[in-house]
């Protein structure tokens, strides 16, 4: 099987400081990869390099495109990469406000990607937006309300709906439950797990929260100072960490 995403030797430096170094892995269709580590471990740098928000100094991010098969997204033209960002890729930001248009109604937020790929029937767009609000457990009556009137958890669910409405094949998530109350986190995780399963989504989730990867990720990479120190099946890594740093990470969670 062709990997959906094949990451090879991704390296990003900030001057003499290493953001991430020589990271490689394959992601297969339907798979969820978790990337864990403390802040400063390079996991966010890696995510942004893969999603095209940062240009790495070395390496390839090969995506199996619908039309042309595997393509290195780092060397592809900017219009192609941005088109990918509106269609087959999605990016869920930690702060919903970074991923939403705060001055636009919930329906407009969800509908934007549809309009960006050329949908021009208002009724259809609104129907799809309303349907997606339902799928992220936002009442249809809120379709014309602005996200500023939503709770933090609702804003995050709206951001997810806005991203998934075009049926992307790969979702990048940056601390999707960060900054939310514990009970709100649990509900969001449940929802995400359902969506990943129902849609057969492939995803890369960066988080410092091991509960998130335990619930969502098939495989796990542990990062420290820009490098992957351990990788494997999620349960394996969490239950029987081999690297000293992974052991520390897992045990510190147990103390919480």
């Amino acid at each position: 099987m062709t990997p959906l995403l094949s990451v090879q030797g991704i390296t990003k430096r900030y001057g003499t400081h290493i953001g991430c170094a020589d990271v490689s892995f394959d992601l297969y269709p339907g798979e969820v990869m978790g990337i864990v580590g403390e802040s400063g471990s390079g996991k966010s740098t890696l995510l942004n390099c893969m999603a095209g928000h940062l240009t790495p100094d070395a390496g390839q991010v090969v995506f199996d495109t619908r039309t042309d098969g595997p393509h290195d997204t780092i060397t592809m033209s900017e219009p192609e990469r941005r088109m990918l960002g509106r269609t087959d890729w999605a990016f869920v930001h930690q702060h919903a406000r970074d991923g939403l248009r705060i001055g636009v109604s919930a329906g407009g937020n969800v509908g934007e990607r549809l309009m960006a790929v050329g949908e021009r029937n208002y009724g259809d767009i609104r129907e799809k937006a309303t349907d997606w609000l339902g799928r992220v457990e936002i009442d249809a009556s809120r379709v014309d309300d602005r996200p500023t009137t939503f709770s933090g958890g609702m804003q995050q669910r709206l951001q997810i709906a806005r991203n998934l409405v075009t049926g992307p094949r790969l979702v990048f998530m940056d601390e999707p439950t960060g900054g939310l109350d514990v009970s709100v986190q649990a509900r969001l995780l449940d929802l995400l797990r359902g969506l990943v399963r129902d849609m057969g989504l492939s995803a890369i989730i960066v988080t410092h929260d091991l509960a998130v990867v335990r619930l969502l990720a098939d495989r796990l990479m542990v990062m420290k100072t820009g490098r992957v120190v351990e990788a494997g099946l999620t349960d394996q890594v969490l239950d029987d960490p081999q690297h000293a740093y992974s052991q520390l990470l897992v045990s510190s969670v147990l103390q919480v």
Partner: protein
Amino acid sequence: MTEYNFAYLDEQTKRMIRRAILKGLAIPGYQVPFASREMPMPYGWGTGGVQVSAAVLTPKDTFKVIDQGADDTTNAVSIRTFFQRTAGVATTTTTSDATVIQTRHRIPEEPLHEGQILVYQVPIPEPLRFLEPRESETRKMHSLEEYGLMHVKLYEDISRHGHIATSYAYPVKVEGRYVMDPSPIPKFDNPKLGDMAAIQLFGAGREQRIYALPPYTQVVSLDFEDHPFEASKADHPCGMCGATDSYLDELIIDDAGGRMFVCSDTDYCEVRQAAGHKRKDAA
């Protein structure tokens, strides 16, 4: 006695503006940056349009200025007087006699002909500004033809008002390529933008942008399949000349709140009245 260069601006500045205009004509709808100059009038008075007019006027031109359709507002009179003094050009209020027409907020009712130039005063040239304030990002959206956001604006309109409520500065797509703000003309005027025989030039002074539509350019107003664009106007005949095909202003005519709809294009209305057209009845 002050000596002015012809049309106030020095020759070098006019050449710079003409280069921007030519570039604009070569890439219809594309916003060309230019180094806007100080003009002896405040920005709100159409300094962008004035600079474009200064760059295209020749001694043989006949110049007309309309402000919301009228030739006699303070703004229109002062710009007309300005070029009378600094360029010595003939002026007129008759649309068909003018070779250069500077306008704020209207397109004349009478179809323009080849050889005429219509110069628009533009306050905000960027149609995407409403939803994307970052200039770097809007520039990228134009270059990559990422115009989904423009429809988000129309979507919001419909979701809030039940129909596309945008009635001025209604966005258009030019030759299937650039999305353009036609300046705050009423959307009633939008169909006149396309396939026009005259050259259309747009000048934004404060924002330092010039854009253009060469003659007979395709201009399409954005819309949805199920909410098509409509060039609407008040559903009345003109109270002075009886015209049913012109854009109307609503006037309060007495202390009792009596109202009358009259042509916003004063020249059009006067020409019709002179030709014997009258309002149909006194109702």
